[in-house]
């Protein structure tokens, strides 16, 4: 069986930020579900590792949280993007696209291009 790729260091944070950016305030379970959904079960996100990450992001000021009620009236902690988080997301998106573009270019390169 082929192993599912591990989430790259730091990319999980980017996914969390993007999810919150697109969907607005979410609770932890919701975020985990979305990431699973979007990545189409290709990524093996150990769901438990999401929570320390959320705590860390909150400490760093990218997201904020408060208790609220979930759809089925359970108590849950809702996370939302802060202004700093939005800025971070923009910067990281730019970085990511740049990196991806460079890597793509490397993949597309053929021997004759370099002669």
């Amino acid at each position, binding site marked *: 069986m082929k192993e599912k790729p591990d989430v790259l260091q730091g990319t999980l944070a980017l996914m969390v930020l993007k999810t919150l950016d697109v969907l607005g305030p979410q*609770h*932890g*379970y919701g975020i*985990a579900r979305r990431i699973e959904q979007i990545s189409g079960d290709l990524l093996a996100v*150990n*769901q*438990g*590792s999401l*929570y*320390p990450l*959320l*705590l*860390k992001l909150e*400490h*760093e000021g990218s997201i904020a949280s408060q208790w609220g009620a*979930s759809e*089925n009236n*359970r*108590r*849950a*902690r809702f996370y939302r993007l802060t202004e700093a988080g939005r800025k971070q997301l923009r910067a990281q998106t730019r970085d990511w696209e740049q990196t991806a573009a460079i890597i793509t270019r490397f993949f597309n390169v053929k021997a004759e291009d370099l002669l």
Partner: protein
Amino acid sequence: MKFLRRFLIRVANFATRRRADQRLRDEIAEHLALQIEENLRAGMAPAEARRQARLKLGADEAIREDHHAEQSLPFVENLFQDLRFAARMFLRSPGFSLIVIATIALGVGATTAIYSVIDATLLHPLPYPNPNELVRIEDDLPGVGAQDVSVSVPEWKDLENSGIFQYVAIDFFGSSNLTGSAQPTRIAAKVVTPNYFAMLGVGAQLGRTFDPGDNTPGFNLEAVISDGLWKRAFGADPRILGKTVRMDNDVYQVVGVMPPGFRDQGKTTEERNTEAWSAAGFAAVPFPPALRNSRFGTAFARLKPGLPVASAQAHIDALVASLTKQYPADYPAQAVWNIRLIPLAESLVGNVRQSLILLFGAVGLVLLISCVNVANLLLARASARGREMAVRQALGAARTRLIRQLFTESLLLFVLGGFTGFAVLFCARKFLLQFVPESLPRLNEISISWGVLAFAIVVSIAAGTVFGLAPAWLMSRLDLNTTLRQEGRGSNGSQQRSRLRHALVIGELALSLVLMIAAGLLLRSFWDLFKVQPGFNPSRVTAIETWLPVPNDPKTDIYSTATQESVLLREVLRRNRALPGVEETAVGDRAALPLGHGKDDLNMSPLIREGQDVQSSQPPLIDTSFVSPEYFHLLGMTLLRGRLFVDQDLEDTPSIAVINQAAARTYWPNQDPVGKRVRLRAEKPDWTTIVGVIADARTESLADAAIPQVYLDIYQRWAKDLAFFLRGQVDPATIAAQVRTQIQAVDPRLPVFHAATLDDVLSSSLSVRRFSMEMVALFAATALLLAGLGIYGTISFLVHEQSREIAIRLALGAQRRDILKMVLRQGLTLAAAGAGVGLIGALIVSHLMASLLYGVSPYDLSTFAGVTAVLTAVAIAASYVPALRAMRLNPNTMLRSE
């Protein structure tokens, strides 16, 4: 930056970790609940739904732990845990903890106290900016045995032009009579070149200092005064600038007031407390013509920034060589004129350095001994806690973790001890400073500063690391099996541990022996000095000083000739003789004051003997004093040959001199000096005939038996710095006032100061020696006490370890006397080993301190033997108590109790 931020976050987390952990737990629970709900909705059985949810989430405990490890400071947490545990351990055995803390407090406190003295005197001796650039310039003439012979004005100019100095200044320390206020006062005053303050780099608090570019050849009649004088004599008058003061009857204009903290540089306390400065170029009246061989004043300089003293010295050597070639008449080859640059800080501390280093060494040994003692105690406890360690290890504690735990405990003890020592020192500093001799340079600057605190902390931590780590390491090295089986059943601890304990006790004994021998040698030196026959009789003699003004214009000087002055002197002497209780009186100059003056006050004259070729040989310099005829009898100096001065010797009769035996021996070996003629002033061809030889007296230094001296009749040559001597039963409290009344009845403008009995002068001349002797003796006693405790502790422990064995021996019929002997033998073996090592150390140390000794050989057999005997006695006494305990052991109870 990022690292720092992460670190700060971790610190914050450390404080809030409970909350974060709780939250993580809550959220994970929520997540599981939601997942399970969803799984149920998808149709799973409840048990399966829970299982799948958990699988998907992952190991939540591990997640929490990881988070914790990453986001917090496990090192600090462990540290806190260890500290808490250590504190509990201390409270469990408060006696042990107190003894350990007190021992360390003693060592660290004493070391810190001596360090604070060294910090002020040796490390920060100069309160001026960039003190490393300041040098003292000493001219030596080793060819004629003369050191530090002052500098002449042409040489000063040469130095200024040498290009390696920012400033070269000359100072000439003396006294001035400050008149105008209610009581004429004599103040310590200095004549300096105008660049003096610029050289020191200190400005005035009010007004200005002298203009360094001022080229006035004589006095420029400006004065700078100290803050103290400004407040005392002028009531801190804010409009003092521009006002005039009279010093030695000359009028000076005050141009500046120095800041309150300013202290002049100088070798004596008196000089450091200079209160008025006047500026002069030293080249015109009243100074002698600026000739190369007319030397006076001391030269100081500030080197160009960044120039090391050594390379400056190389420059100066080249300069001296070229000047010697250029002026062969002024610098005869056999005088070997040279100039030395001495860092100012070093030149000021001078002879105190050795004593302080000795003290620091001694106190360092005390610290070492107290640390060894503590290490020993820690080891002893290690054995008692062997079982605890074994259990912990058996339960899976890592060895490094155990070492850390034990190390934290001992380090905490050391740090607590260090703080206690520092706190005691801080509280007692005023009290302790009383014991420091006044003659110590910069006594007032000694303070318990931050630097001293830092020193105390560093010393405690360093000591704690060195002496805490080894016991911790040994303690954690246990053979689990044997320990768990045997510990608590009277077994003996590991071989290694007991070997280390023995080594520690031996080291302790050796160190104390070294200290005690040093103290013994110092004590004997001091005693010998104290008991030395000074060659004069100081008892019941009081000396009181006065100072005749030296106006800058010699024409206004009413005491410009010896005849004029003798009227004053004879009248004051006549009046003093009439005072109640006074039996004899005499007068001399300050140089005639036995032991009461520093080297700078010496009056050195060139001694030119008749019949010697003046051109080819530089004359030697000789200590010169001016005295009245009664001086010799009053001080009990014996005439050996010829005659003393008599009343018929006057300014217009042939000039005569009396020399001491040392001078006779040195300059007229195997000849009779009486009748020989000498000249004591290079510039004047007046011959002085030697009429008498007196026995040597230790008037310069108690440690120096024979320094050549020449005495001149004060009625033939005038002197300005006078000391009146009175012998008799006088009231020391009022004598100064009585003499002042008498002197001022003759001339109301004369100040009268420094009344002291010669006995006091004698004893204060020994003050630094006494201080270091007392301190080293105190340290040695402490060391002996600690070593005694150490050997007591070790032997007690041995007895405790061997109690089972002893009990069996007793049960098998051993004599109690044999048991006693056996234990005592163990103590004695340790003592002998310690003494052996100590004697070798003591030989090295006493060799190093030879220059501090007087009259006793550094290898003095009786001191070495006596001290070794004392140490052995203490060791036996300390072993005796546990030996008795061993002897009285009841084998019955002992063997059954196990």
